[in-house]
């Protein structure tokens, strides 16, 4: 019902295009995350869906209504802002009730709805407080409650967790995803943090410079990036990208966790793939995992290894190898993923260096 549809949506500020023709379907009930570097047009896109920003061109549909000319209040959606945007002079109760009152809901009904929601987000004992008397986390909950109480078809959230400390942010992530499951409404969530996107979204829209790079599920995005940008944006640390002599204008990539590192200079010969010699420049021990920064002939490469294999010291000579199935190929000029033939024509281990 409340599927959201963008058709060739364009936004320009003073003739400067910032959103450049988005085509996107956000299925009813999905948790769709718009993710991309700062300034790529995520907020602008969200604000156009909300009706806070006019579209320069294209169409926006919510459910089976074209909403280009529908004012924000009539689009049956609610938004949570990064800075919460609570009404500073109203107390928590009034903040939550404001939207209901504007719809002309009877007072008694209004009151019981507010209390019900306050219960859900744990604000019952704070209803008389002003926003200035609340902690960041509590303000966040008021903002959520204010959105939820309207029972909208679509929830819009613009980096709602970025003002919280790390611990609270993790907790709220979990709460938001479970909230989404409970409500079953459509969530459109904006973040620049790919970890947040991957952990929360069931559909992820990667954007860059006002264009959609890829729309996919988290797993698909990780395993099957369509281009160099997505490959490097998703995953931390980012995918290693190397030039590759065997094929003209083709780049080769692999994820740090797929690289294998051994304290030997002997080429491994077990399976198809590449192998490279290098020297460990530095390492970071992250609990169960270790990051090795390895200098090679092709530049610095990061490999993530398990702790249970024995640690390799800094300055040691090592051999890196990557299985053929874990390699990605990209066209150097367009950045697009190149599929198929390369994988088969790869030389056996040792061939690359």
């Amino acid at each position, binding site marked *: 019902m409340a599927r959201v549809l963008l058709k060739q949506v364009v936004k320009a500020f003073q003739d400067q295009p910032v959103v450049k023709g988005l085509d996107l379907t956000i299925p009813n009930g999905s948790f769709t995350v718009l993710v991309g570097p700062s300034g790529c047009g995520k907020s602008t896109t969200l604000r156009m869906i909300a009706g*806070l920003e006019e579209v320069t061109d294209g169409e926006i549909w919510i459910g089976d209504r074209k909403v280009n000319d529908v004012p924000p*209040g009539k689009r049956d959606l*609610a938004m949570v802002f990064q800075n919460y945007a609570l*009404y500073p002079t109203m107390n928590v109760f009034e903040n939550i009730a*404001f939207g209901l009152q*504007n719809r002309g809901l009877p007072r008694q009904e209004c009151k019981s709805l507010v209390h019900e929601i306050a219960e859900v987000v744990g604000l019952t004992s704070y209803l008389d407080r002003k926003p200035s008397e609340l902690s960041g986390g509590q303000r966040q909950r008021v903002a959520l409650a204010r959105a939820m109480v309207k029972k909208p078809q679509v929830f819009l959230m613009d980096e709602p967790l970025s003002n919280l400390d790390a611990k609270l942010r993790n907790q709220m992530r979990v709460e938001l995803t479970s909230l989404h499951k409970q409500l079953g409404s459509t969530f459109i969530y904006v973040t620049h943090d790919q970890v947040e996107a991957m952990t929360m979204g069931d559909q992820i829209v990667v954007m860059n410079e006002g264009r959609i790079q890829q729309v996919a599920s988290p797993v698909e995005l990780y395993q099957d990036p369509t281009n160099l940008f997505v490959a490097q944006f998703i995953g931390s640390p980012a995918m290693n990208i190397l030039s590759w002599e065997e094929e003209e204008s083709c780049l080769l990539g692999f994820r740090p966790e797929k690289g294998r590192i051994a304290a030997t200079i002997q080429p491994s010969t077990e399976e198809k793939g590449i192998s490279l010699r290098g020297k460990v420049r530095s390492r970071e021990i992250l609990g169960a995992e270790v990051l090795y920064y390895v200098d090679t002939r092709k530049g610095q490469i990061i490999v993530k290894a398990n702790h249970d294999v024995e640690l390799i010291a800094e300055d040691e000579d090592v051999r890196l190898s990557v299985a053929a199935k874990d390699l990605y190929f990209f066209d150097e000029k367009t950045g697009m993923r190149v599929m198929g033939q390369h994988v088969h024509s790869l030389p056996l281990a040792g061939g690359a260096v």
Partner: protein
Amino acid sequence: MHRLAAYPLKIVERILLIVVTLVFVFPFLWMMLTAFKTLPEVFRFPPTFLPEIWDFSNFMKAWESGPFLRFVFNSFIVAVGVLILQFLTAVPAAYAFARYRFPGRNLLFGITLIALMIPPQVIFLPIYVQMSGWGLVNTLWSLILPYGASAFGIFLLRQSFMQVPDEVIEAARLDQASEWKIMWKIMVPIAKPVLVTFGLFSFIYHWNDYFWPLIMTNSDAVRTLPMGIAMLKASEGGKIWNVIMAGNVILVFPILIIFFFAQRHIIRAFIYQSK
């Protein structure tokens, strides 16, 4: 170290504050004391500080010298009427100047600022002619209507409306609030300290104003309190200073009451202003 160095400075600061306070308070105190003296004592030289005999009759004399109840009533209607009108016009104007982009906005705001710089003495003539054309001269309307829009109020309110984050207004729009509602339910409460400041300025100005009623009125029925006091001065030959001062005490009494009850709020409003 630090504290020692700061200590003499603190003393100097205190002394300066006391001097300034005396300069402002003394005339006021003198007015109060004079209002309680008998006429011979007022003219005695060297002057006495405290009244030798506390004479309370001066207040009755002042009050009974004319229709003072009428004057108080008129003053009140004018000051409050002006305030309400200014409030009703300044809020939408300031909201538009602060929050909408429309052609000619800067020009219009510029004109508003110019109005801020023109004293009433410069424009009273055309306004008088206009009021007279509408048949409003010598009515309370002629004291209220010309002050119905305050450039100062628009300016102050605009400043404080501009500081409200965009998202708060956007959140209200998403909450289906009309522009009207956003203005009165969101913006005005946020601007309350500024509104109080402005309200005080406006009320005191119009309560004390002498010039405008002098121009626009010519009968006791529509005169205001300052004119009543001025008439004390003109009545009979010599100047009965004790009665005049008693009239002045009556004049400032409501303002003192306001200050007394709103002191905290006023101080906060002015601190807010200077931030």
